[in-house]
């Protein structure tokens, strides 16, 4: 009996030690008058130096601590944020000289968060560092197109002239590729060893990671959270009403949802939950928070490998498009919140048009007629065969483990079986799929994945014949279907060099129409950007535009 009591008390003591901990809990605060926001993100920024940051999560934070030259609002409209005006052809601030161009900029006077002024010299330093072969900056697309930048009123001035080697349609959207970084902080690391500039503490250590934005970095607990604090009396933004913004990094999206439900976080950014979870969260919200669904820029589609003779015939591709009930698919899977797409550009893109598009509504009879016209007749097993007796059996690949794509595959398989096409599903882990299969055009017939488009995306390299990856060009280019069309080449090349926006959009409109006729890839749907926030948080919306996130207007947020 004594032994029993002894063990029982031991057990009880053990349990009590770990359950009754005398501590306070985070009490819910009333929304109005609050001056803090806690945002949940499933990703953690890798680095806060814009030159080396690779993750979308970093861009969302960088928006708060740096000023953009030109920014987009949530309706995709451009406005000058860090500069006095957007250069344009009419007033001569954007001059064309044959193939070359010159853009004249004037930056709005402002300071780094340590009080030193932002000057032309900061822009020159950053551009030169990005141009240096030894600096491990990844993207140098614009940097390589710029021949030089000149401080017209001295290094400490705010007047900048940028000379471009070649025509580039979007040259007036940013002064240089990486804007300005504080030269007075970074130069010593750059001089010491340019190839290790990415290993300098700038971008990691809050003490020296200074920016010119409405907020400054004050704390970064790696793997856990990051906090920025409002800069008082900012020359461009005044004093923001939200004093502190904290991002908490919660990699498991279910746990992220639980955090939202528990009230531990005030908002979930667009780099947070999946579409499915947002729908679920919306059902559970019950007035405690608002879930945002905004049409985004991520385009889900299926590439056809045009080297495969079966799908090289446009009638077969059109039959496949008619044979899949995409409208019902998006209704069933997404409640219609992610609409069917009809060409390669998202509908919100300025180059998109719905005029003159060839669309492929669900029509199995039309699909069967097209296949018959292409010489296919039904075989004994219900699968169609061509004149050579080859079965119309196609392999469909996508990323393994992506539940939504796997559901889409099953619907396609079922739909196409009814018109006599056999679909064999073969999925790969993302690393293998994007590292070996799609980019080397090793998919035998159809490959499903998404392109992340931006408001400046066009079809150069994506659907031009020089963008077909092959051994010779080091597998560069994104034309994975292997689409070759002289008219498409002409339109895409011209659009990427056309500086007149109206003319450019006209060229893109034509490319969108041509694409829908030839369908080298079958458009599926446009993914929605999803976010959530407590109803009291004003000014927060789901924005996700490669480079612009919900934080674009952070200095105007407030609690009500």
């Amino acid at each position, binding site marked *: 009996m004594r032994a029993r009591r002894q063990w029982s008390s031991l*057990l009880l003591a053990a349990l009590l030690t770990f359950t009754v901990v005398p501590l306070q809990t985070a009490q819910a605060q009333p929304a109005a008058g609050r001056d803090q926001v806690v945002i949940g993100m499933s990703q953690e920024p890798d680095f806060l130096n814009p030159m080396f940051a690779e993750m979308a999560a970093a861009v969302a934070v960088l928006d708060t601590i740096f000023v953009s030259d030109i920014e987009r609002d949530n309706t995709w409209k451009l406005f000058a944020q860090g500069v006095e005006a957007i250069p344009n052809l009419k007033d001569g601030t954007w001059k064309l000289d044959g193939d070359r161009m010159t853009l004249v900029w004037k930056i709005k006077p402002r300071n780094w968060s340590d009080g030193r002024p932002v000057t032309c010299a900061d822009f020159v330093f950053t551009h030169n560092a990005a141009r240096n072969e030894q600096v*491990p900056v*990844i*993207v140098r697309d614009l940097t390589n197109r710029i021949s030089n930048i000149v401080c017209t009123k001295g290094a400490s001035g705010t007047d900048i002239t940028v000379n471009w080697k070649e025509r580039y349609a979007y040259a007036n959207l940013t002064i240089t590729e990486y804007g300005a970084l504080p030269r007075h902080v970074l130069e010593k690391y750059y001089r010491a060893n340019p190839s290790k500039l990415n290993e300098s503490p700038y971008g990691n250590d809050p003490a020296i990671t200074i920016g010119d934005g409405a907020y400054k970095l004050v704390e970064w607990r790696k*793997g856990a959270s990051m906090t920025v604090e409002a800069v008082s009396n900012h020359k461009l933004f005044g004093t923001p009403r939200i004093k502190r913004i904290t991002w908490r990094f919660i990699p498991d999206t279910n*746990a992220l949802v639980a955090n939202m*439900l528990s009230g531990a976080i005030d908002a979930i950014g667009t780099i947070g939950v999946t579409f499915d979870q947002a729908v679920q969260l919306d059902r559970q919200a019950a007035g405690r928070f608002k879930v945002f669904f905004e049409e985004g820029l991520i385009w889900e589609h299926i590439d056809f490998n045009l080297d495969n003779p079966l799908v090289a015939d446009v009638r077969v591709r059109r039959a496949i498009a008619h044979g899949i009930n995409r409208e019902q698919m998006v209704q069933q899977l997404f409640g219609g919140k992610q609409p069917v797409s009809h060409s390669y550009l998202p509908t919100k893109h300025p180059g998109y048009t719905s005029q003159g598009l060839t669309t492929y509504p669900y029509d199995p009879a039309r699909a069967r007629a097209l296949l018959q016209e292409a010489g296919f007749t039904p075989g004994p097993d219900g699968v169609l065969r061509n004149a050579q007796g080859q079965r119309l059996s196609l392999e469909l690949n996508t990323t393994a483990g992506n539940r939504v794509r796997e559901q889409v595959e099953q619907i396609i398989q079922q739909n196409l079986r009814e018109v006599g096409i056999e679909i064999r599903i073969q999925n790969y882990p993302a690393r293998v799929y994007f590292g070996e299969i799609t980019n080397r055009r090793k998919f035998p017939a159809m490959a499903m994945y998404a392109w992340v488009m931006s408001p400046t995306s066009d079809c150069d390299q994506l659907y031009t014949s020089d963008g077909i990856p092959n051994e010779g060009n*080091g597998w560069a280019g994104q034309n994975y279907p292997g689409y070759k069309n002289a008219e498409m080449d002409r339109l895409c090349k011209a659009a990427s060099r056309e500086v007149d926006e109206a003319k450019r959009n006209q060229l893109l409109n034509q490319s969108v129409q041509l694409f829908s006729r030839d369908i080298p890839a079958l458009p599926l749907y446009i993914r929605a950007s999803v976010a959530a926030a407590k109803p009291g948080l004003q000014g927060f919306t789901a924005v996700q535009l490669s480079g612009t996130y919900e934080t674009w207007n952070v200095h105007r947020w407030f609690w009500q």
Partner: protein
Amino acid sequence: MQRYILRRLLQMIPIALGISILMFALLTLAPGDPVDLLIASDPRVKPQDVARLKRIYGLDQPIHIRYVKWLGRTVRGDLGFSRTYKEPVTHLMRDRIGNSLWLTVTAFFLALLVAVPVGIYSALRQYSFLDYLATTFTFFGVSIPVFWFGIMMIYLFAVWHPWTAIGGLSRLVLPPGGISTPGVPNGLPFYLDRLRYMILPSVVLALLSMATYTRYTRSSMLEVIRQDYVRTARSKGLAERTVINKHALRNALIPLVTIVALSISGLFAGAPITETVFAWPGVGRLLVDSVIGGDYVAAQAVLMFLAVLVLVFNLVADVGYALLDPRIRYD
């Protein structure tokens, strides 16, 4: 014994080298080179950029040269710079291992504190109500998927918490994940805050090993109390407590000690699933994230560190076994 330990230590060198070669080769030869993948993910990246980056990072050299260079640096204590986390891997590992130890060590002691008494009690009162209860509990403990249990605990203690309606119990509302409240000052408030964040993940983590340890203790105790020397002790007229504590328990714990010693290296490896569910920045998550993210520098360092720990603690387990059990002798 000393010669045995020395021999084992020397044997570790070729084994560690073998592991390092295998690990380096597997990670390097895995499809989808991280720098090549940049091209696929961003149309603005050109082949020249990939060539330039490979040159800067030394990835353009043949694999055996890269291995030798890596080995040379690693032996000197330079574990490299993580491309994903933009931090020296030594810093990264120091922080992450520290975080993991908070969690794993707590869970480990919590598990032992519950499992050993429960296991002993179950064995002493075999087929009693509490024994059935403990056996059922261990059955659940080994079968419940940890991610599901984690989410349920978050839901119960952080989201739903129905008991808060009862006055005074609102203290039992726990944070749903993370490691600390941002902005908490250092010192005592920091540790108290950290403790609150640790409760859910450490209980979840402890449950798994708790079940295993309970089963080990129970079966080993059952075996021992049927031994002749226990009967002898009883017939000598010793008090039941002395019989259990002195004669049975000590012998019954020998297999458990081995299991425990072997699991110590696991404490440093963290717990990837629990850490992910509870947003705990530990070494387990670091390993998984760096492998998925193609950050081989970090992955190699973590894997190598864990491999060496496993080797060392295997030796510790073997030596500890010999010290505890006089029947075992190594020469």
